[in-house]
């Protein structure tokens, strides 16, 4: 009989290899679906790989897609560190997108517009995240459920805007008017879509790591998440830490929306996010809630998303495979995490 036994120590290589093992297991499991769809597994994964990382243009496309997931991944990682269960990054992203679109449509010098878009977008995301945090602190409402429900509320608010006040009277499409050209985030490499927001996302990750690992607020967030009783005993105002965490987490998710408006779409439409908020949960878990790990995790998921579309065109395997990969990766990573604390031991029948 097999049983789990607590580990006394975890080998260092194991911690690093864990996400890779989880991803490998995921790809093996999902190759079954590729086979069911009647395509060659090696061929399908090959197309995915070359379309997402095969040449310099593909790499920039993958990075553009990774940027919002770096932000939502950071948002989730920081929230989960404090055990603030923010499942609302999707709604916070949408709020950031809408708010920054409002600002971006006002004519003003470009650098000012970009700065204001970032500030207002982050504030909008923070404000949305504050709702579930306040409800939890004041009314003991489960933050998972309230942040989830809020996603739908924000989504319908966005739809009301683009089908109402913002509706394009010329074409009749439910999209917002575009932001000013001067407010568009500058493209860094001619001929690609690699915009300034991607660099900001890449810088945000080490900044968040510094905040969590080296600052007082980061310390409070970690202690609150690990042991709220001890935090309280140590004189930490747990409720205030939760609210600060929510503001920070929501602001990061809001920035994901700002980047999509300022650097990719230049306006708001109903499908501005293909679920980047939920992908943020997968990213954060693959990164083991470490802000530095968020970057490779987001790039991996972005590569899967970019590659899945090309794979679908080439082999006919539905592109929804990328969603299955995300879900499977999350579950595989959770199981993998179990083995940092436990190992499997074969024990006698008498046990």
């Amino acid at each position, binding site marked *: 009989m097999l049983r789990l036994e607590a580990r006394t120590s975890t080998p260092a290589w194991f911690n690093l290899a864990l996400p890779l093992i989880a991803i490998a297991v995921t790809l093996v499991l999902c190759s079954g679906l590729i086979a069911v769809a009647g395509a060659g597994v090696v061929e399908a994964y090959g197309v995915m790989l070359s379309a997402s990382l095969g040449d310099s243009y593909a790499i920039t496309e993958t990075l553009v897609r990774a940027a919002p997931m770096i932000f939502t991944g950071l948002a989730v990682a920081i929230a989960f560190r404090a055990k603030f269960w923010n499942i609302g990054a999707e709604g916070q992203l949408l709020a950031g997108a809408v708010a920054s679109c409002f600002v971006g449509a006002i004519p003003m010098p470009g650098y000012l517009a970009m700065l204001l878009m970032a500030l207002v977008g982050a504030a909008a995301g923070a404000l949305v995240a504050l709702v579930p945090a306040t409800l939890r602190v004041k*009314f003991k*409402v489960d933050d998972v459920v*309230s942040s989830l429900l*809020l996603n739908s*509320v924000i989504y319908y608010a966005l*739809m009301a805007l683009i089908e109402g006040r913002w509706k394009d009277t010329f074409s009749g499409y439910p999209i917002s008017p575009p932001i000013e050209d001067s407010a568009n985030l500058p493209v860094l490499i001619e001929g690609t879509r690699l915009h300034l927001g991607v660099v900001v996302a890449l810088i945000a990750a080490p900044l968040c790591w510094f905040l969590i690992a080296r600052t007082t607020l980061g310390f409070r967030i970690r202690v609150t998440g690990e042991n709220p009783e001890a935090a309280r005993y140590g004189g930490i105002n747990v409720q205030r830490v939760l609210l600060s965490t929510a503001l920070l987490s929501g602001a990061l998710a809001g920035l994901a929306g700002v980047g999509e408006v300022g650097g990719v779409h230049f306006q708001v439409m109903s499908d501005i996010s293909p679920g980047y908020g939920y992908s943020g*949960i997968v990213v954060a878990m693959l990164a083991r809630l470490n802000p530095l790990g968020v970057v490779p995790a987001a790039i991996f998921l972005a590569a899967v998303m970019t590659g899945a579309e090309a794979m679908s065109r080439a082999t006919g395997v*539905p592109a929804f495979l990328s969603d299955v990969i995300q*879900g499977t990766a999350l579950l595989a990573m959770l199981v993998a995490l179990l083995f940092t604390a436990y190992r499997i031991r074969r024990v006698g029948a008498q046990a």
Partner: protein
Amino acid sequence: MSAVFEQIFQVGFLAAIIRIATPLAFATLGEMFSERAGVLNLGIEGIMLLSAMAGFTAASLSGSLWLGVLVAVLVGALMGALHALFTVALGLSQHVCGIGVTLFCSGLAYFLYRLIFGQQSVPPSIDGFKPVPIPLLADIPVLGPAVFNQFTLVYLAIIAIPLAALVLYRTPWGLSVRMVGENPRAADSAGVSVVATRFQAVILGGALMGLAGAFLTMAQFNAFTFGVVSGRGWVAIALVVFGRWDPWRSAGAALLFAFVDALQLRMQASGLGHIPYEAFLMLPFIFTIVAMAFMSRNAVAPSALLKPFRREER
């Protein structure tokens, strides 16, 4: 205002409430059994979606609606077992596993649907369930045609509520479920298998979520579309809190929510002023959040909810 009042007491309105409440009642009862045993199942949204897809596909390919229902229930139970494997057997975080199950099930549902039906501009539909009037009862004025001229699955939901209460409060198994949800250590000492009981409760819950999904694609919409579940699973989780983990209250909460939802549909249709219809669409979600704020203060969740149980750790 009186116009709104008149509409409420129309047969069509009452029937709409019952139809909206049915999948919610199944899903809420399913989530309730799971949580009563100590396991939060955030996989509900995905489980409903995958079951809805599987049931629709089975019915569409075989031509038998009841086979579709059976498949939906089995898929729901299977995904419940998956969630239990992660949370009960392995003791992993219930929050994150639930989201993982939802992502996995949603991805799989869309993937398989596209694989089987391909990309079509008009989604394929089936001849769904037809209302079956119950003799005599259907002749009661207003109530009769609204409640007793419904789909068989609606009657099943009506029966499921007292049955759930009976199972939970009056059977040894129900006692075990409540024990492992309140005090797993005591249950373990009393010789109740915590792991087995939790597995059974989560699987039963998944089966009920499967029924909810089956209702959506085989009675309510007769087709599988990408937004077919559209947050009903999340709402069910809130309704369990609102219903204080009790079958009767949970079903009442589902009915109340359905009333608000039916009302917003009516208000939308009546084109009230220039309020955008999205304002009505978000109404049920805001209602649920506000209701939770009122109910959560003195809500008494099962004490062992979210807590994994490992026998050797004392």
